[in-house]
């Protein structure tokens, strides 16, 4: 593949690309933190099957999963200023059209993850036997205590691998900001590609960074799992 890839170009672009990683980290940390919290509540509420709430959540999840993230980001980016622009201007003197684009991308990803992770958690929660909840209730714990102390830790173990996939996915999806002119890892790779006419080195550098992140995350998860093992023997 002679002319397509050169180690020299790769070495040249790699430091430039990795220097943009803070954009990815910023987005992924906020989105996953808030997205996970949102998802937990979405999962709980879905399982409770409260009338009205149930239908609203059904539509929310369906919309967030069913439509492209790019479109959701566009709705956030153009729609929020359109609807709330005057309110923010009058109340806080903030011009929403001048707010950092990153914020809108984060809003979109948080809402998106609320739906995706929410469903992953819901599945995992059904794996926890009802008796565990009942045992929590029986010692006088509130519903919330039982959920967060008894059910969630056991469900999390089930959800963790899929959660990891999602996490790495978000780390890559941050490149959505590039559409709005903010340069993350992949955006930088594209930029360098456009500037030099050689895209492959940049993409591979970005991939290498993604893979490192995936491995890092895996390490963190393994560590968490080690501290979460509940004595049940491995598969037989």
């Amino acid at each position, binding site marked *: 593949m002679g002319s397509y890839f050169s180690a020299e170009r790769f070495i040249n672009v790699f430091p430039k690309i990795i220097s943009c990683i803070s954009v990815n980290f910023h987005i992924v940390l906020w989105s996953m933190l808030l997205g996970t919290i949102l998802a937990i509540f979405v999962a709980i509420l879905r399982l409770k099957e409260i009338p009205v709430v149930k239908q609203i959540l059904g539509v929310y999840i369906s919309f967030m999963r069913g439509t492209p993230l790019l479109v959701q980001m566009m709705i956030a980016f153009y729609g929020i200023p359109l609807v709330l622009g005057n309110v923010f201007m009058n109340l806080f003197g903030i011009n929403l059209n001048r707010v950092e684009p990153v914020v809108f991308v984060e809003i979109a990803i948080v809402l998106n993850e609320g739906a995706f992770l929410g469903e992953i958690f819901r599945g995992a929660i059904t794996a926890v036997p009802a008796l565990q909840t009942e045992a929590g209730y029986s*010692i006088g714990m509130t519903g919330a205590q039982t959920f967060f102390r008894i059910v969630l830790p056991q469900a999390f173990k089930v959800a963790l691998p899929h959660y990891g996939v999602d996490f790495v996915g978000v780390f890559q999806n941050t490149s959505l900001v590039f559409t709005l002119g903010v340069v993350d890892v992949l955006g930088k790779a594209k930029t360098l590609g456009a500037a030099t006419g050689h895209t492959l080195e940049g993409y591979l550098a970005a991939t290498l960074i993604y893979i490192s992140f995936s491995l890092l995350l895996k390490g963190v998860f393994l560590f968490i799992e080690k501290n979460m093992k509940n*004595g*049940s023997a491995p598969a037989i």
Partner: protein
Amino acid sequence: MIELTGVKKAFGKQEVLKDVSIKVNDGEVVVILGPSGSGKTTFLRCINFLERAEQGKMVFGDKILDLKHVKKRDILYVRRHSAFVFQNYGLFAHKTALQNVMEGLTQVQKMNKAEARKIAEDALSWVGLLDKKDFYPAQLSGGQQQRVGIARAVALKPDVILFDEPTSALDPELVGETLEVIKKVAKMGITMVVVTHEMSFAEDVADRVIFMDGGVVVEEGKPGEIFYKPKEERTRQFLSRIIPQDAYVI
């Protein structure tokens, strides 16, 4: 005191509890007897709101509750003043024996950790499992799990303990010991409702025995009365399997 009146509960079409009423005075020990599937577990679960009865009233301490329409706060009140020992153990799978016992102490009673640990260790040594305190439920034998369940309930020092066959997984030696534990608990003035088939325990400890069948209370009375002078044919029939015929002579 707890008193339940007119408790009804159906699963689909099947009426599991048809108008059950019992009254248990403070410090009293009541044993519920009855064939498999007669609704004993379901009844205990209704008391603790693990199952929602379709109808019925409960007096719990100084609260009067409608079993069907009850406030969250009242449910929590009942659960905090009672404990449940499950027929199939119901230990928290991700917590060690010790953590299982400590959980209610630290989270519900807001005890500090050191104190809770002390009480939990006492409770575990009471049931002879101090050496297994760091084992997870999956690493314990059936009998061991059941004893952890008992320790967890007793450690909470609730007003009422609901025992659902607390000795079913235990060997005879431990049955004896565990029943001793339960007797000690009884002496602490804790009210108890015990589903059990251990006649000797019932005879020794129970203030009253209730015989249930097909979702109704067939008969109730002092152990001596029920065991040796049952009024109902059904009771007589049930007991005949356990108590040797000649015992009736006594």
